[in-house]
């Protein structure tokens, strides 16, 4: 058994082409996403609550709409709801136009017009500065006909503190999951299919090696390979492209191993169906690619249309990535991610049973 694990590792190390492609794809994506400027300003989504409804407020809204980098929504939204959305990152900014915005009586008050509230989180400091400045200027411009105003009093910034998260950090963990998933599914499916085609499995079957030891050695060697792969992907992301891992790396690797076992089992199942190694590779891709998009590798699954967000919860990549991100980005201990781990554990059991049921040596 130990001899088989070492022999498996040796064979994997020598199949350089396979290792190259297994690493090339995720590494290439790390490079692409690393080079991409995600923190540019882009478009800021802004919700506006108008408590005034007066002509001055209307002018303010019209002028806001002229600002190109603001994407305005005037939906009915309560301040509490908006605040929660901003906190979760689902909404960039909230502008609350006060009731007394238009009130001329208010303008003659010594303290000047009632201030507009601008609510945002600390998630995107560069953009915050830009939006804050633009809105502040606009408010002061609109009030400039009504006598002297003190610009600093025209706008109240309500800033929600959130932990600093870079999109690259989120994506880096997505790439880790993607790399482990594709490599585990495709490499085991192709490898076992090749072994079967060449009657290597049959040759092993005439020895006293028990079947469970064969499976265990394959899984152990591939999980070790997955951990090396994870180490390389994370090292590149962190040391070259400045990604950050806030949580415990041991927990990250533990979740990686658990996910890898699920995907290896799926690979075993596919290898039982595939007639040739090429077919196994195609089937592996066919399973892995949709999962990549539906599992939240690059973008939040909440952004998916139709029933896809619900469907995505039923895939093994989704709980794996959710657990990885909660541990690595939010710094949570592994036991706090237990619902995801339970889902992954369920997948381990279900896929292992399926593999045992359909697997054929001959």
């Amino acid at each position, binding site marked *: 058994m130990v*001899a*088989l694990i070492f*022999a498996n590792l*040796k*064979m*994997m190390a*020598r*199949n350089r082409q396979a290792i190259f492609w297994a690493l090339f794809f995720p590494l290439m994506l790390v490079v692409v996403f690393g080079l991409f400027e995600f923190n540019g300003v882009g478009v800021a989504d802004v919700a506006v609550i108008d408590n005034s409804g007066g002509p001055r407020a209307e002018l303010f809204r019209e002028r806001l709409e002229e600002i190109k980098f603001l994407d305005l929504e005037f939906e009915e939204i309560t301040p509490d709801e908006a605040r929660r959305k901003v906190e979760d990152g689902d909404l960039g900014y909230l502008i609350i136009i006060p009731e007394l915005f238009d009130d001329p009586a208010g303008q003659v008050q010594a303290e000047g017009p009632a201030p507009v509230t601008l609510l945002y989180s600390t998630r995107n400091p560069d953009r915050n500065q830009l939006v804050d400045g633009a809105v502040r200027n606009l408010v002061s411009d609109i009030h400039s006909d009504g006598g002297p105003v003190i610009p600093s009093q025209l706008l109240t910034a309500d800033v929600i503190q959130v932990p600093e998260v870079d999109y690259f950090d989120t994506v880096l963990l997505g790439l880790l999951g993607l790399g482990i998933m594709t490599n585990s599914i495709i490499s085991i499916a192709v490898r076992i299919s090749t072994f079967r085609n*060449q*009657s*290597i499995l*049959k*040759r*092993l*079957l*005439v*020895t*006293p*090696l*028990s079947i469970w030891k064969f499976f265990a050695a394959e899984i152990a060697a591939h999980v070790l390979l997955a951990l090396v792969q994870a180490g390389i992907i994370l090292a590149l992301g962190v040391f070259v492209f400045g990604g950050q891992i806030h949580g415990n790396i041991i927990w990250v690797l533990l979740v990686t191993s658990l996910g890898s076992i699920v995907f290896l089992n799926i690979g075993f199942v596919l290898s039982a169906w595939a007639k040739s190694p090429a077919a196994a590779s195609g089937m592996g891709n066919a399973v892995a690619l949709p999962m990549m998009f539906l599992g939240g590798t690059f973008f939040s699954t909440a952004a998916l249309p139709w029933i896809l967000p619900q469907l995505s919860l039923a895939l093994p990549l989704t709980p794996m990535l959710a657990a990885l991100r909660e541990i690595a980005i939010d710094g949570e201990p592994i036991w706090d991610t237990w619902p995801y781990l339970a889902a992954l554990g369920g997948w381990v059991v279900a896929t292992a049973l399926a593999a045992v049921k359909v697997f054929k040596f*001959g």
Partner: protein
Amino acid sequence: MEPAVQVENLVKRFGSFTAVDGVTFSVERGEVFGILGPNGAGKTTTLEIIESLQKPTSGRVSVLGLDVQSNAAKVKARIGVQLQASAYYDYLNLKEILTLLGSFYPSKVEPGKLLEQVGLADKSASRIRELSGGQQQRFAVAASLVNDPELVILDEPTTGLDPQARRNLWGLIREVNQRGVTVVLTTHYMDEAEMLCGRLAIMDHGQILALNTPRNLINQLEASYTVKLTMDQPMTLAQIEALNGAVEVIQSGEQDGEDPVTENTYLLRIANSPSALRAMLDEISKSGLGLENLQITPVTLEDVFLELTGNELRD
């Protein structure tokens, strides 16, 4: 001591197809036992049941005194198997493959020693794909000896090899046998069966048609020589029948139609007596037929096979 292999009324069906149809034989310790037959005769299926790779539909198989169905692991530990056309790991060298295979067994032979035995000592760091066909087959034999087995089962060990590589492998199989290892092999080469096997089972359509030493199988034939006649024109049935002493006409050229090589060619078996040949030649000259070519060969296993199955050995 129990026989090395004991097979009783073995039947194996795949759906409606009967691959092995009531086979019974036993292999004594220390012998080289051959199963000769065309592809699809049921040879490999029989071996795979002995190796416990397949379950029999009915019948009993014991190996080294152990029932294979209930003692699969124990049997596997004591036998060596060379499968028909099986491959080995691409990314391990010969020595590493033997070390790995050896690790699955309670007792193992040192890889260097095995490679030495099969004449591949200088290839221990090579990969399988770097070997010639003959070397690959010799390696397969080495791999079957990795656990110092009491019985080795070789499924078509020389198929696809050139004549020199085949002879080389025959020598190796004899050496293994001389060290006391029982050998069971299948082949569809008549000469191989004749050269190597102490006893031989001739198998076709899932059944054993004959089982004896190669010499006895040949001696059982009424005829002792095969005569191949090529005439300048077709013979009539009456003329053929008139060839006294011909035990039987096996093949008439008329069936081959246009083929210029076999046109007007007749294969006859004649009994072991010089007078039979003379009588036949006299008959030909009397009838005024022109004889273009005449070949006389002693009967071989091929003739035995022909006699038993009514067919030439299918390839």
